[in-house]
């Protein structure tokens, strides 16, 4: 079921200024219009790799980055690459829902306004579409002017997703997007992903093995900065090739 390669990661490695090596020589393909899962125990470098895909690591103390990441064949790691444009093409949802201190409406239009879009009709349409996509429309359509921080945690996280969807990115990165959420909100977000994957490429760091197994079209198992195994999700969770993957999936270590 291999499709188009959306992101190609080539011999990618990364070290922090405190000397710790976060990622070691990763080579991996992310497939377009699929749910790509990066999983493994904490500290394995999954989030770091996720953030490398829209260069958010630029904000932290990264000492050394080796290798390349290609988005549609274009090297996004090269110096001088237009990062602002990259981040509009590759959106991210973080583990903890962080709504900006403004209204629900402005939270969603924020990214569009940054891109210079002022047209009210365009903004309205984007708000409606992205709220519907993220299954939040029913709950908030009559109070778009309310401050976003008045929403519940689950609603806030769906708002964060809507905020990304408003930009119509090509790739959506999700960093443990349901870690603090109740099962119902978690289910809503997982359903949203399934519904939207015909249009978007998802890369998700799940918050549990169970979630990984539920959503993965493609799965990659990370352990201490190394990619141990990569393959079709269903196959890997039924029949992992490596003993360490199997040990982790079956809960022998966490």
């Amino acid at each position, binding site marked *: 079921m291999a499709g188009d390669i959306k992101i190609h990661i080539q011999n990618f490695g990364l070290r922090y200024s405190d000397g710790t090596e976060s990622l070691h020589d990763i080579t991996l393909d992310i497939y377009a219009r699929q749910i790509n899962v990066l999983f493994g125990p904490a500290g394995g470098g999954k989030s770091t790799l996720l953030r490398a895909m829209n260069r958010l690591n630029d904000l932290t103390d990264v000492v050394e980055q080796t290798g390349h990441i290609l988005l549609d064949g274009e090297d996004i790691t090269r110096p001088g690459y237009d990062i*602002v*444009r990259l981040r*509009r093409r590759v959106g991210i949802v973080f583990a903890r829902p962080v709504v900006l201190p403004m209204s629900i409406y402005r939270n969603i239009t924020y990214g*569009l306004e940054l*891109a*210079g*879009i002022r047209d009210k009709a365009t903004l309205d349409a984007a708000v409606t579409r992205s709220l519907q996509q993220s299954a939040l429309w029913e709950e908030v359509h009559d109070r778009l002017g309310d401050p976003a921080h008045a929403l519940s945690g689950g609603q806030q996280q769906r708002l964060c997703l809507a905020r990304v969807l408003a*930009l*119509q990115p*090509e790739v959506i990165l999700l960093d443990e997007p349901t870690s603090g959420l109740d099962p119902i909100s978690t289910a809503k977000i997982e359903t949203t992903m399934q519904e939207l994957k015909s*249009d978007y490429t998802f890369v998700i760091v799940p918050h549990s093995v169970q979630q990984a197994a539920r959503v993965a079209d493609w799965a990659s198992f990370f352990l201490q900065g190394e990619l141990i195994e990569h393959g079709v999700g269903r196959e890997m969770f039924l029949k992992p090739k490596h003993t360490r993957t199997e040990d982790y999936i079956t809960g022998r270590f966490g």
Partner: protein
Amino acid sequence: MTDQHEGQPKRSLSWVEFLIERAIQVSGISAIILVVLIFLFLIKEGTPAFMEVPLSGLFATRWYPIEGYYGLLPLIMGSLIVTIGAAVVSLPLGLATAIFIAEIAPDWVRNILKPFVEVLAGIPSVVIGFIGMLVFAPLIRVTLDIPTGLTAFTGVLLLAWMALPTVVSVAEDVLDAVPKTYRDAGLALGMTRWQVIWRIVLPAGRSGVLMALMLGVGRAIGETMTVMMVTGNAARMPVGLRDFFMPVRTMTATIAAEMGEVAHGSPHYHVLFAVGLTLFVITFAVNIAAASVVFRQVKRAERMLA
């Protein structure tokens, strides 16, 4: 799938951004530029003094500019006496007030006290000088039965009081910085609250207390209007303990009192700038020293100092 608004990032916007970010960077280094500029100007206007007046004339005990006597020693001694005195008085008072606010006072008292200490920081020094001159100095004269209340001692008390917001604020930060686990450990061992403060909290905050002292000194040595109004301004060489209860004249007061009257470019003008240069160098040294003691705790202190 490219979206409909691609290619729109406006060039004009990034031009504005470019200019704004340059302006921010220039503002960022403005402090360095200004310190250097101030230093250079003090040197430019102050160093001619060393050509015009022989060193032996500057390091003499007689300050009488009208007749060409520019001995700086009485002024330096005056500043030293008042400053050291103020520091000695304000450190224990400030420390005690900080302990009171941080450790002893109930919440409602603390909520009243903190703004009041800030009010103290906000009272203009000319107002404190004014009250010192009209109310405080006569009180000292009568109480101590001395010829005039405008003495070094009067200046010391008022300066100590004025330096308190700085000392209290730094000391409070110091007390806050001592981890709660230290206190809990002490209390768990059956120490009283006072023993915890005296034997654990204060020793743990030693370096911060030292810094509070230095910043208080920095504040006191630069104070101008209050000292000018309450210390009597007699440029005499203090020799004994008795002189503590006599008028003195500080470096700051000398500049403030005489600069308005001198001709630009005269030796007197240059000597006053040299006095300013001396003050600059002293406060520079004191502040560098204080900053290097505990850089982390400086934030509030520098706000109080201004």
